[in-house]
């Protein structure tokens, strides 16, 4: 019988150590694929905008506008949701139904895959909320708008927003279907971090209503735009999510004997 109150861990086996080290780098692949893929895609899109914006994007009544911009938007509205549904469906239908028997090494690997997906989600948020949003200012403060579907709006509202929504929901589904902690209970900070930025897309309806009926000119700090601001704050839900992931990973490390920490509260 032990005479000490110290928490003493048994030594980790070589197999457990190897599994921990391998699982920890599982975020690199999804993150690299997502970051490189999105960067290349959006740079090509930016080149298209640069060419077709000034050439065919100034007059929405021109036939060329229909050809080069409206058709592009219709394609986006079909392709992005279709890919999202395929992605989400794949994650749901390939879910793990035996999570109570999940090995700690595999659980650790899944935690890091989830972190890689969250990384891709935040990168997609960067493109929508930072790059395309301010680019929208540069275009609309310069060029008179005569439609809600401008070369800038077609990029931000109907491409970059659906893309980050797809990534965020995919990460949420991954967590619910593959990690025991996240399948037993729903992480409210995670839901906030995904649902809040998602609501920015429906808020576009209010934005377009306002621009159509109240404020034709472009004043970026107008109260009409503040709905985007408040919904953007919800991305801070990642704070609570990061804490939950921290605790989850520490718990797995303890079960794998590769951490000497005390029992988690």
């Amino acid at each position, binding site marked *: 019988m032990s005479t000490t109150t*110290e928490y003493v861990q*048994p*030594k*980790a086996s*070589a197999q457990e*150590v190897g599994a*921990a*080290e391998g*699982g*920890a*780098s599982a*975020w690199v692949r999804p993150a690299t694929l997502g970051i490189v893929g999105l960067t290349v895609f959006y740079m090509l899109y*930016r080149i298209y905008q*640069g060419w077709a914006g000034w050439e065919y994007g100034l007059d929405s009544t021109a036939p060329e506008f229909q050809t080069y911009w409206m058709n592009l938007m219709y394609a986006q509205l079909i392709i992005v949701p279709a890919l999202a549904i395929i992605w989400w469906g794949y994650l749901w239908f390939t879910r793990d*139904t*035996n999570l109570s028997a999940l090995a700690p090494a595999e659980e650790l690997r899944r935690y*890091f895959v989830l*972190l*890689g997906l*969250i*990384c891709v989600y*935040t990168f997609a*948020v*960067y493109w*929508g*909320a*930072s790059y395309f*949003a*301010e680019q929208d*200012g*540069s275009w*609309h*403060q*310069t*060029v*008179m708008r005569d439609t809600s579907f401008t070369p800038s709006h077609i990029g931000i509202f109907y491409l970059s927003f659906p893309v980050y929504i797809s990534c965020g929901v995919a990460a949420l589904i991954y967590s*619910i*279907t593959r990690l*025991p902690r996240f*399948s*037993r209970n729903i992480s*409210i*900070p995670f839901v906030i971090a995904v649902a809040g930025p998602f609501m920015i897309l429906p808020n576009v309806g209010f934005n377009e209503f306002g621009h159509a009926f109240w404020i034709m*000119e472009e*004043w*970026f*700090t107008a109260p009409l735009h*503040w709905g*985007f*601001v408040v919904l953007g*704050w919800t*991305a*801070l839900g990642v*704070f609570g999510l*990061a*804490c*939950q992931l*921290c605790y989850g990973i520490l718990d797995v490390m303890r079960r794998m004997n*590769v*951490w000497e920490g005390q029992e988690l509260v």
Partner: protein
Amino acid sequence: MSMSSTTAGGAAAEDPVIAAAGLTPAGAKVSRNFDWVIVLIALFLVTGAFHLHYMLLAGDWDFWVDWKDRQFWPTVAPAAAICFPAAVQYFLWTFFRVPFGATLCIVALMLGEWINRVLGFHLWARFPYALIWPSLLIPSALFLDAVLLLTRNWLLTAIFGAWGFGLLFYPSNWVMLAAYHLPVEHMGQTTSVADMVGYTFPRSATPEYLRFIERGTLRTFGGHSSAVSAFFSAFLCMVIYIGWWFMGWAFSKMIWVANPLASYMGLKNSQQS
């Protein structure tokens, strides 16, 4: 706890920090991977969400040099800019004792702004850089972080750090802005260089009345108008910092609710409970 007797993985950690944390080499590898991916997530998240917040609350002053006035720019820009730094300082300082939350936010903001000033404002909308440079906030952020690090107290940081954050804004930018406030004569009228640049590169979707932003008795207020604005901004920053520190607290809550989808997931054994 005895390190030598309990270290797993075959060898004691040699790094004193890792040893103090009780991490084995394998645990340290997991921890470092977590650090790297969190750094990337934080960078992308803050750049996206903070940039959206800042551009829609202080963007017009930040976009255009002829909007960088003495009344609203030094008042609005720091007040809008201190929100995310306060929340991120709460999260990073409370949970990780990382003392550069404000600097991280501001550097991420500057990065996001400059990427678009080059690719959007300059290369797409064809404006010169002289018209579109963003406000500089890095000295303010360094001061805010330094006060938190030295005092280790959020209330003192709100009182002194946030106050300095607002006050430092105008002097930090003055070196870049001063030349644009010089008077020039154009078609028999006196105007500033900043306004002259604005007249030369018109924003046709931005009505003229929105650019004349100095109101009231400001133009007859001696040389003190920008100082008055800076002190008012410092006061605003103190109040906003406190509010956003608690925003960071609220968003850091680890809240769980039972998964309502669990019964549809076909989970085996006791997983559903």
